[in-house]
């Protein structure tokens, strides 16, 4: 038994190819990026060791901070939107729908698996103004709200709004299904007991459901944050970061710096910053939820 399960040749055959590929394509490039962030320019052309000066440059770079703040606003709105609407939808699944539960769940989940480019094309056509009105402007026209008809994707504020709506829309089903899975596990007696003790709906929600759902909500936060912090595809496909830099995220800033302006060193610096952001966010959410555990 031990001999068969400890067969060194078989282990090597099973583990070495995937491990080599993984280390070569994922792990080494991470270290490589960190090293690159200490250089300036482009390898092969002019690539000089500059120490930490890319990092000080980043701290003083106005365009970096523009992307950073846009990204932070996006994270705040989209992450809370995804989880709040997901929670709401999960409550609807649990308390308001009796028949066709599976059908509704299937429909609501569908946008999750759609390619982000297709979704972005769909939204850009929905909010189109020329050559003919898209769905939204056409509906506004028919409702007589002509003063609201506008080039939604041509103005910074509304383009950002459309982007947020789009990314919340695609993810609601995902969070609804996860949270619903946890809601189902709450025993009915717990809720009934609270009702007998005279709890109203809000108290029930605040004192019973939220504490019991906390572990799954923490997971949702980590998932949502790791998606929104590195957002790239949806805005690239919807607006290419525009108009101006109104919807340009950090990842897009990093991409432009590296591949449009060929500043590999500086691009790597921004990439390292994004990596740190993701790791810090994960640890923070974990810590906060651990701390909250005691005092609800």
């Amino acid at each position: 038994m031990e001999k068969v399960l400890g067969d060194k040749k078989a282990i090597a055959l099973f583990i070495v190819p995937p491990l080599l590929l993984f280390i070569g394509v994922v792990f080494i490039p991470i270290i490589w990026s960190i090293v690159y962030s200490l250089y300036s320019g482009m390898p092969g052309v002019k690539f000089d060791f500059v120490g930490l000066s890319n990092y000080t440059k980043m701290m003083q770079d106005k365009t970096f901070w523009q992307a950073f703040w846009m990204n932070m606003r996006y994270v705040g709105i989209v992450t809370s939107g995804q989880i709040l609407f997901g929670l709401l939808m999960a409550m609807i699944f649990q308390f308001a729908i009796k028949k066709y539960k599976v059908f509704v769940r299937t429909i609501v989940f569908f946008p999750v698996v759609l390619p982000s480019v297709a979704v972005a094309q769909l939204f850009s056509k929905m909010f189109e103004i020329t050559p003919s009105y898209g769905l939204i402007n056409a509906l506004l026209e028919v409702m007589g709200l002509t003063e609201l008809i506008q080039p939604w994707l041509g103005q910074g504020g509304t383009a950002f709004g459309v982007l947020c709506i789009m990314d919340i829309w695609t993810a609601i089903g995902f969070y609804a299904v996860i949270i619903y899975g946890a809601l189902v596990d709450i025993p009915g007696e717990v809720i009934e007991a609270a009702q007998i003790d005279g709890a109203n709906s809000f108290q029930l929600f605040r004192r019973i459901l939220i504490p019991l759902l906390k572990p799954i909500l923490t997971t949702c936060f980590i998932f949502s944050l790791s998606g929104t912090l590195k957002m790239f595809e949806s805005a690239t496909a919807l607006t290419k970061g525009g108009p101006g830099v109104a919807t340009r995220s950090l990842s897009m800033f990093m991409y432009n710096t590296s591949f449009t302006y060929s500043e590999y060193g500086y691009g790597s610096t921004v990439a390292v910053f994004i990596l740190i952001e993701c790791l810090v966010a994960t640890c923070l959410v974990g810590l906060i939820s651990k701390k909250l555990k005691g005092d609800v």
Partner: protein
Amino acid sequence: MEEIVRQQKIKIAHKRKIQSKTLPFIGKLGIALILLIEIYPIIWIILSSFKSTQEFNMTPSYSLPTAIHLENYVTAWKAGKMNIFFTNSAINTLVSLIFILAFSTMASFALTKMKWKGRDLVLKIFLSGIMIPTVIVLIPLFTVYKNVGLLNTRTALIISYVAFGLSLSIYLLSTYLKYIPDDLIEAAVIDGANIYQVFLEIILPLLKTGIVTVLVIQFFFKWNDLMFSMTFVSKTELKTIQTGLLYFSDMYGNRNWGAIFASIGISVMPTLLLYGCLNKMVIEGMTSGAVKG
């Protein structure tokens, strides 16, 4: 005391009765609205893809098509080169899935059932990949691919797809493997099976659900990829469906809405089909990373 509880119970029952009378109407309306918001945009795209150019100019965009104009699909498929992009994505996805499946089943078997030193460390290395943002590897990979002449090849995309598909697949398969009892392996070994027979004849058939889940999830990730394909491939003949779709809408812009809608329709067709047949498994698979983690 008992009397109070009894009265409370009656009160609650009464309250529920009222709720269950008012809820159905508002509830149904709300649910219908939610369904409409979630699903109508997709229906709109499909309906619009059948409209003629004239219809786009003459009628409001929410109106139904008067006839089914399939020429949009012909334009998108042929003149819009969607046939090339579709084939590229199909090849890249298929080849990647085969490698992801082979590598992740072998690795997760060795990581959960076999006994060796350093097992936990290797598992940790693989799992740490789940949290890593893709942008961090782009520049180094681009540089390497450029130096070895792999830019503008399918190989570059497939290598990246496979490597980035491993973490989640190994994680999922390991959780499935934990449910397979060791006694089965022991019995097979006593009967004289070697390790390869155990893997191929005992483990793989039992892992069927896990394998299908991994295939389905990874299909969506690879089919939907934009970042790798826009970085490593710039030749039109090698573009994938997502970069192709972007390229396509840049080319046609606002001039040919019908063809754009048709191209979106083509890009989501495999998704629709797969989701239509396997939606229960897709939902469980996509959320299993969050639920089990």
